[in-house]
């Protein structure tokens, strides 16, 4: 009985540790509400660490073009993300048109994009740390110089 208890404790402990590790880079949140032609709700919440992990396993030849494109801008992207991490919460860009509203902001440790028009509402929140890791994985996929 004690043995089963220890095994169960081990399994639960490992699961909790694994979950903690998986969520260590925060969570990506995607919310889509489609109003036309039919009403659909989509809500996805996933560990942000999956993005760089997925990038790691993606075929290199498929990423090399994107990696080459992004390479000249890497120092700029790194500096921007580093500063975004440190800065206070801020609305970076907001565009309003009749029937449309787009907002890109920094909230907590995440970049949040909200788009609202007559047909859809989209909300995407991505941790800055996950964006950094994904960009680094993408850069690593390029040809080394």
């Amino acid at each position, binding site marked *: 009985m004690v043995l089963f208890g220890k095994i169960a404790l081990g399994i639960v402990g490992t699961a909790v540790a694994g979950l903690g590790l998986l969520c260590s880079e925060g969570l990506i949140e995607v919310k889509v509400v489609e109003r036309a032609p039919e009403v659909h709700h989509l809500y996805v919440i996933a560990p942000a660490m999956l993005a760089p992990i997925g990038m790691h396993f993606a075929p290199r030849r498929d990423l090399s073009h994107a990696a080459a494109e992004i390479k000249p801008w890497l120092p700029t992207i790194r500096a921007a993300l580093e500063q975004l991490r440190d800065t206070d919460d801020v*609305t970076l860009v907001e565009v309003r048109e*009749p029937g449309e509203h787009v907002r890109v902001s920094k909230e907590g440790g995440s970049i949040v994009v909200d788009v609202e028009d007559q047909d859809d509402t989209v909300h995407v929140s991505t941790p800055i740390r996950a964006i950094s890791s994904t960009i680094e994985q993408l850069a690593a996929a390029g040809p080394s110089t």
Partner: protein
Amino acid sequence: MRKRLCGLGMICVLAGLVVTAPAAMATPTERYLHVKVEDASKGESVNVNVPLSMAEKILPTINKNNIHNGHVTIGHADMNDVDIRALLDAVRTAPDNEFVTVKGKDQDVRVAKSNGNLVVHVRDAAKGGQKVDITIPMKVVDALLSTAKDNELDISAAIRALGDAGDALLVTVEDASEHFRIWVDSKGSPE
């Protein structure tokens, strides 16, 4: 009695330190460059808010076209043979004065240096009464010229100087329906 007073004094000093230390150690307030474009006739508006510290860190990483390491290279050919650096330096060293005043039938132009600012006003009746007002703190002009090279302006230093200057409305352009503004303050969102 003296010992008690000493002890009380020490407690007061410590309490004062505890109360004032966080304020003294507080990080300087973030400052933002705001750009706002509004078109009342179309009901459209665009707001861009950039933390100045971010702009200051990003600029030196951009090396494209005329921008290198936070400096912008200006060729005489780009400015119709006007030496923009010499022009800014002349304005910088001149006392407060009206440099240019043009009053036309449709257009008024005024360029002046006033209260530590370079001020440009343009009124253009031909363009639907368009009004342009530009106010640049001279500290920013000084910073622009702080680079040693003759054909460069130091944009990074100018942004730093802009951060050190107080809240300022830098550019406004208004006509019948459109309203364009650039300003600096310490609010993360406009208004």
